[in-house]
């Protein structure tokens, strides 16, 4: 059984209680330094992350904002390749076999390796799902089949401009969960309108059995709590990467982990957990 499904099913079964909104924590593999990535992953889990999203660095991450673009450049500067990312994941799995890990990246490095080979190596390294930013459902037949063959979830993005018909199309092809992009912009932007996001996510949850996560634009515990109102998962990325900084400072890792702890505490505060009807 895929770890994403197991984890999210378990949370769903727990009902409307504290700890039932899953936190997905994103890090770019190899940022700020390849030697630190596995340690950072463990720290984030210890701080309360339920799922991890491991960014596969790409030279031209056009859907990402400046923070993750810089993180990709740093990682590539250290020579990180898709192969390195698999090695990091295997090392993470030596100590953690339960936390779901999603690989997030762009299509060209995957196709360069070959979609079949990528899926096989990802599964062998201990990945549970793959999110390919620039591969919408209409273009992802081959990739989707390759991931399914290895029992990997394919996570798709939904955006504020995604129509109901497309939500159903994407939900029909996706697995694990659906990732709602809270704003019309790039990762780390700050133009989201919480009420609109919450309302739309609730609508989407009515159209699919898949859990729905919200990401892009979550800066702190406060914004996470507001957006979590409609969501099964919240995804925090650029804010973590920004806290990790570029210097490879151990204090920065603590600061990033603290952000996850703050979000966890915010989500689990009785007033918040009681009001929500999630999962």
């Amino acid at each position, binding site marked *: 059984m895929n770890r994403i499904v197991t984890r999210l099913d378990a949370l769903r079964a727990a009902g409307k209680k504290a700890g039932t909104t899953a936190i997905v924590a994103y890090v770019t593999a190899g940022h700020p330094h390849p030697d630190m990535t596995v340690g950072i992953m463990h720290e984030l889990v210890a701080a309360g992350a339920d799922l991890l999203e491991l960014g596969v660095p*790409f*030279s*031209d*991450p*056009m*859907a990402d*904002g*400046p923070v993750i*673009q*810089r993180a990709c*450049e740093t990682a*590539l500067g250290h020579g990180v*390749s*898709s*192969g390195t990312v698999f090695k990091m994941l295997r090392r993470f799995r030596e100590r953690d076999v339960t936390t779901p890990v999603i690989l997030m990246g*762009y*299509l*060209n*490095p*995957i*196709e*360069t*390796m070959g979609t079949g080979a990528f899926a096989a190596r990802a599964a062998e390294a201990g990945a549970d799902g793959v999110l390919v*930013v*620039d*591969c*919408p459902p*209409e*273009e992802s037949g081959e990739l989707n089949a390759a991931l399914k063959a290895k029992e990997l979830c394919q996570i*798709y*993005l*939904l*955006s504020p*401009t*995604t*129509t109901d018909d*497309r939500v159903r199309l*994407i939900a029909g092809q996706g697995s694990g969960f659906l990732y709602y*992009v809270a704003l*019309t*912009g*790039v990762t780390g*932007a700050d*133009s989201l309108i919480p009420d609109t996001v919450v309302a739309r996510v609730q609508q989407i949850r009515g159209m699919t059995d898949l859990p729905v996560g919200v990401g892009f634009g979550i800066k702190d515990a406060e914004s996470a709590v507001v957006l979590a109102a409609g969501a099964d998962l919240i995804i925090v990325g650029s804010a973590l990467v920004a806290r990790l900084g570029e210097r490879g400072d151990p204090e920065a890792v603590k600061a990033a982990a603290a952000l996850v702890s703050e979000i966890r505490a915010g989500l689990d505060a009785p007033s918040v957990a009681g009001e929500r009807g999630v999962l």
Partner: protein
Amino acid sequence: MAKRPDTASLPDARGHFGPWGGTFVAETLVGPLEELRDAWERYRMDPEFVQELESDLKHFVGRPSPVYFAQRWSRKIGGADIWLKREDLNHTGAHKINNTVGQALLARRMGKGRVIAETGAGQHGVASATVAARFGLDCVVYMGRVDMVRQAINVYRMRLLGAEVIPVESGSKTLKDALNEALRDWVSNVHDTFYIIGTVAGPHPYPVMVREFQAVIGREARAQMIEQTGRLPDVAVACVGGGSNAIGLFHGFLDDDVKLVGVEAAGAGLETGEHAASLCAGQPGVLHGSRSYLLSDADGQISETHSVSAGLDYPGVGPEHAWLKDSGRAEYVAVTDDDALAAFHELTVTEGIMPALESSHALAYARTLARDMGPGAVILVNLSGRGDKDVQTVADIDGVAL
């Protein structure tokens, strides 16, 4: 004779030319691209739109651009007759404005008051800033920091035209990074912003839309060659970066018995790795929303490219060129910086026409071809832009302080 692909039916509804093209974008761009596609489908055949476009091409751009027999240069080479399609004589000095006029007219009809553009050499940025001024639109141009240094005059031209030029500091700080940054702006501001892509690359509908706006080059050239020489050329040659001037020229001759040759930038030489020849030396991949040939490393990371001409310095190429290459209808070759520079100087002193360094690549290949084909043959070269913008670059290479 090369095969004639069934181009009338291409691309398909989602922008595929066979295995090439498509719409490889994040979900955030799917809605905006559908809105653009719907507008394009609606207006492309609209008589009022077509009339307004034709009027602006005539009175604002200065079309038709002439074809010109480069007689002294042809004689000097001592082979085939070389004719030039004078896109350098367009307003703003290059073919780029054919497309920006069209897209700006579309932006106005879509109610978008702000246009954005990416630029490499600055020609597309200038052409975008020009139409923005002409139509009273706000304009932001993204340009790699490296290109801003290489093309300082064009940066100032854009600013004089009222555009804001934003330096791009990410990645290789050239055209591909400017394109990334423009896409980011577009996805964040799509409610009031129209993204004017300058070439036949990007996600559907850009490759087909830009092609249709540039097809005027080939349509005119075909009629002009028949009128002035009584025949079609044997070969039509154009430089290829993203590939818009070449697609525009080629589309006039696709169904004719005319050989089509696209000339890429071989930079310091294909064997050195320092080039921008994605069709000649790249492999299939996905970048900036479509599948085409591109230059990337063993891990699929996009390579940094090199060319003396900023306009060809791009690691990808329009998907229709990938299709034309695979179908055998067009042939693609590459010319080095040195050969392009030699052609630049030669045309300038023998014809009094200073070509853009981009176009100089096509000229350099035409020179070789003219010798090989010999007298009696006719070669048509798309002189896609004028070289005034490159004077500083050439002076630097020649060791001349201005």
